[in-house]
């Protein structure tokens, strides 16, 4: 069958050419779309919480870039941090605000990003199954603890356990996504879980867990933190757009830090599908400025460095990188000055205490 062979050779040639068509879309002088991402929610809705959630909810960027004809695309993948790293790596993203640990892992693996601002702080909650008989953090030793691995909670657990002289290896870790954590708690297969307020407090409300410990109300080690980052190749090609996006981001942080917006904030966060009440409980009594500060202060840097040490120790990152080179606060300082917010947020020292002037 001669012609078949010819056909086949043709196909082979086509197959060889295929990957070149794969090659990445070239950076254009002016993009027609800006893609941003934030950690996803279990319901899979394209909304988030924190500053990035507000930026999304208020549609600040959409309004900002409408005259330029630039579209804004949002991703809130359920795979959260690791999924965002993947999207960065195959250049499907320009900006993202996500947890400190995957931040570091992504940068450590060689994803060329730069930190523009901090994502803010959010307390970590340790929920335990009432029947598990866990009364103190020390009781967690040998117990089954669920959270999504590769996220900031891996670091949070390590820091929280360190407070009582334990390590992550002293508990049995179950790598589960949100809904699976619920099921596992329900069936009694895990004894405890680590999460943010909206998730854990919703379970508390349904009576499945009790809060054993939380970092709420204090900058205690173990709170989640994260960064707002930009892909370097994009930043180099479009410095002006980066400045405008960061401006929007800082405005969103500002909005989220004003107590008069508290109720609106809850409404925006509830778009994620998490119950509004759990946000109310999570934020109750907190100074919104503490939660949503974009400042790249010493506290933030200390957290990131702790994250890097941890990821190196856990072999999540194979070789260290220069944190200070990664975090570029020049643009943030300029933006704060332009907006007149220089004194709005108080920088914190490495221990989390406010810096006294």
């Amino acid at each position, binding site marked *: 069958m001669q012609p078949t062979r010819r056909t086949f050779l043709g196909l082979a040639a086509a197959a060889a050419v295929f990957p070149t068509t794969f090659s990445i879309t070239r950076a254009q002088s002016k993009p027609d779309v800006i893609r941003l991402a934030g950690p996803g929610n279990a319901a899979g809705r394209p909304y988030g919480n924190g500053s990035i959630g507000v930026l999304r909810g208020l549609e600040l960027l959409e309004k900002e870039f409408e005259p330029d004809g630039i579209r804004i695309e949002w991703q809130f993948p359920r795979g959260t941090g690791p999924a965002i790293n993947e999207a960065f790596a195959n250049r499907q993203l320009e900006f993202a605000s996500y947890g400190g640990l995957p931040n570091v892992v992504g940068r450590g693996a060689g994803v060329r990003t730069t930190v523009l601002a901090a994502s803010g702080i959010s307390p970590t909650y340790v929920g335990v199954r009432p029947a598990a008989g866990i009364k103190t953090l020390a009781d967690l030793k040998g117990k089954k603890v669920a959270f999504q691995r*590769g996220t900031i909670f891996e670091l949070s657990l390590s820091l929280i356990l360190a407070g009582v002289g334990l390590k992550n290896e002293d508990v049995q870790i179950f790598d589960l996504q949100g809904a699976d954590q619920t099921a596992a708690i329900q069936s009694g297969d895990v004894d405890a879980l680590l999460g943010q307020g909206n998730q854990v407090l919703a379970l508390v409300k349904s009576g499945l867990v009790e809060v054993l410990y939380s970092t709420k109300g204090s900058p205690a080690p173990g709170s989640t933190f994260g960064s707002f980052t930009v892909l370097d190749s994009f930043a180099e090609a479009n410095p002006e757009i980066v400045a405008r996006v960061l401006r929007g981001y800082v405005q969103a942080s500002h909005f989220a830090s004003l107590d008069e917006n508290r109720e609106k904030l809850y409404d925006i966060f509830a778009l994620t599908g998490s119950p509004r009440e759990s946000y109310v409980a999570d934020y109750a009594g907190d100074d919104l400025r503490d939660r949503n500060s974009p400042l790249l202060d010493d506290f933030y840097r200390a957290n990131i460095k702790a994250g890097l040490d941890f990821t190196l120790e856990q072999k999540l990152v194979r070789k260290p990188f220069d944190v200070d080179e990664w975090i570029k606060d020049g643009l943030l300082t300029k933006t704060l000055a332009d907006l007149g917010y220089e004194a709005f947020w108080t920088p914190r020292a490495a221990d989390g205490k406010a810096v006294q002037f």
Partner: protein
Amino acid sequence: MSDVTFKTAGSIAAAPFERAAGKASSHPAAAFRLPRWAKLFLLGIVPPIALLALWSYAVHQEWLAEQILPDPRLVYETTLDLLVTGQLPAELLVSLGRVAAGLALGGGLGLFFGLGFGLFRTLDIYVAPTVRAICLVPSLGWLPFFMLVFGIGEGLKIVLIAKTCFLPLMVGAYEGIRNRPRKYDDVSRALEFSWFARVRLVVWPSILPSILTGVRQAMSRGWKVLILVEMISSAAGLGYLMMWGRKAFQLDVVFATMIVIGLVGWALDHALTRFQHRTTLWSFKAAV
């Protein structure tokens, strides 16, 4: 869950080699005097080598970011590293144990039900449709229930694999019973076989091919669903290792695991096919 074992895979498995070789030798271009297996081998490794070359070239040219297209050498080193440190064998052992347990449980029940439906018409009419309908819901769809009922521990994995292995063996045993050649019943009567001898010498051998086909499918599906459930909820096993590689953003680990998953799946299928060919050779020939 998803299974790509084809119904006639057994009979094709042998055929392509003979024909490919036959064609190659009659072809004027292939005039070198190489043994058939060597020709096949040389042909067969061309695409993998080409792919490897392309891969290396792509890495070299940085078509894709290095994080998502690791150097083949790194993948090789990682695979070796995982093997030497014993991590991969350990995870593999965990995974294989789960498949074996699930296959034994689900396959055994499937066999039992299949034989029951095949032998008793009442059961077949009243019960079998419901059982089949339940089986038609994909394993992944059952996951929410199973998680609530069995938790997320070892039980869940084994039950889910068992559920997956159930259907192929049930169908295998059922079809075996229903389609078994009746003409041999007269033989066993004329030879005055006891009930036991009848089952052992006539009935069982006649349904064995169909059951073995079921076992092969069950194994293949079981292996695939295992990877799935390990990816979702686990603290050990190949699927877990792969997810860890993903979360640590170390694609070399992902590649290494994928290769192992593919190889082990292939080895299991191949071994079972060989076994099936050896034990029930007659059925492949008699069918022609």
